[in-house]
């Protein structure tokens, strides 16, 4: 069972290497590529959680409070914070 799973993972890792052309590069390049990709991905998720999420929440708040309660609600919210 365990062997089968390892075999399965190994095989699909091999297929993944093939379609990304990583099969033919040297080992350190493979590692380097994965590190770079992981770095990029983590930066992207950091960016998402901080900047994008903040923006989205701000925009939704604006829309939500301005369109449904055009006058009262936003000012209240702001007052509350202040």
């Amino acid at each position, binding site marked *: 069972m365990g062997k089968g799973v390892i075999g399965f993972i190994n095989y699909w890792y091999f297929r993944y290497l093939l379609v*990304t*052309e*990583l099969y033919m*590069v*040297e080992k350190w390049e493979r590692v380097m590529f994965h590190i770079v990709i992981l770095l990029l991905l983590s930066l992207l998720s950091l960016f998402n959680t901080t900047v994008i999420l903040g923006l989205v929440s701000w925009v939704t708040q604006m829309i939500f409070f301005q369109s449904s309660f055009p006058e009262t609600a936003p000012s209240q919210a702001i007052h509350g914070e202040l």
Partner: protein
Amino acid sequence: MQGCLTVSRESQSTNKKFAFVKCGRMRPQILSIEARMEEGAGDAVTELLSGVDFENTKHQKVISNGYGPYSGGYANGYTCINKRNGYRGSEQNGHVLASSDEECTAKNMKGPIKNGYVKTTLKEPLKTRILKESFEPPTLLTAALTHISFYILMFLGYLSQALFPPKIVKEKNRDGYLPLFDRFASFYSRYVYRRIRDCWNYPICSVPGNEVVLKDRVTNDNGWTFEFTGSKTKCLNLASYNYLGFAENSGPCAEFAIDAIYKYGVTTGGTRQQYGTCDLHVELEKLTAEFLGVEDAITFGMGFATNALNIPTLLSPGCLVISDEKNHASLILGIRLPGATVKVFKHNDVKHLEQILRESIYKGQPSQEGYKPWKKILIVVEGVYSMEGTIVRLPEIIALKKKYKAYLYLDEAHSIGAMGKHGRGIVDYFGCDPKDIDILMGTFTKSFGSAGGYIAGTKELIDFLRKNSFASKYAWAMAPPVAAQIIAVLKILMGRDGTNEGQKRIETLARNTRYFRRRIEQMGIIIHGNEDSPVVPILVYLYSKIAAMVRTLIKEKIATVGVGYPATPLMEGRIRICLSAAHTKEQLDYALAVIEKVADEIGLKYSRKPIDPTPIDYDKIKVYVD
């Protein structure tokens, strides 16, 4: 996409209408569209011979159907040539490129014929042949993934080069000198090709018959250097161009070649124009011409040089060459040398060819003062394309060439011997008249198991080449044992040895081809090309898959060739399999079983075509029955 197309052979007895128009020299006057079309490939055919402009000579322009000057008129034109080239003697210096029936017509005609505008009508099509050609483009997903992975490869290459530059990268050009090599080309060979270099350039240590012995080697530094291990591997040979299996070290052909060594040695000691011609050459040229069904032939010691050195002899600036986009490097080199205008048409696309022909005839030569017709127009095609496995649509191209009065240069390197009921190449395959093709070129390397190339055509053309071609003036004549091998093979193919060995081999090759191609298609692997072409390119797209496949197949004792850029487009890597009459059904079955296993393993079943699951019976495959 499985396209079926029917091509009909043009009828021989076309309706001829000759227009008798008097003419003088070339005039830069404005012609109507129709007149320009009539002009066709333009000027007198003499220019094909001389490569010089005859505008100022007095001879009458005599063109019949665009081929050649006939009867009264042609003496004029040819006396000029004689004077220019300073040779006399041959009665038929007239260069008449004409198909047989036209020759008869011309003989009956009296007086000069000018600009014979022949309205070709496709009456009574004599022969038709269904061409089954498969071409399946990759799905969008495959194409996108291939692109992305190529960028990954490039990124890693540049990164690696920047971090650990090899000595050669740090080298600076000397002051005032241009770099010797293109930067991308050297990067590509160092950081793409080098990584999988172990799949190419295998040294062999046996005759490349149906099996071949490879010399094993290892690399400890990722392809920069190799070391021989000292061991050898015997592999099934799906890599050599050995279509009829004549690459042998025993048997009648080899015996004949050995006898030739005892008689003549290995060199001729001179060029054909000096003391290099022996009776073997004369016999070979006679046999070749007879085999092809044309008047005469000339042979050279190297196929590549046959193209690269003879095309420049036939062309000059002011000529137009229309070339297929997948033409071989030797053709491209030959076309570029003489400085003629070159236009390229899409692979095997007759419509595009016609469009280019019409446009260029209408516009004429690029010049400032008015309309100037082309000196001549040459269409350059191959019989079987070695990287695509496709077959030229010869009947349609012959019809076009007749309609627009162009010349046709057909390179039969891969088709001579391998195609057609009698092994006479693509001309035989379609049942065309060999005299309709102005210049028939081919090589003796592939089907004949030897070396060298030939050009065949009318006597006048060949005489001209004998006199003027660089390859006959300056290149050493073909080695006698090499010529002897070809003679022996030609005799076998023509049945002169008293057996039907030649016919048997041609049929075996055709059967092997159909069997192998159908079985591969059943597996859902994408292959390109015609069902009768013995070159089978298996599309794998990615470099890694080329490497993985070649390595695994060699481990399973099958030798194949991987092909990538620059021999193919950048994203269309493929494995090329060459079938041979020497392969037995068992060998093919073994290869097919292994290929199926590998295809599953590395994911090659890209095809989205419906699969016909009926099993294929090798013995019941019909070949050449029509």
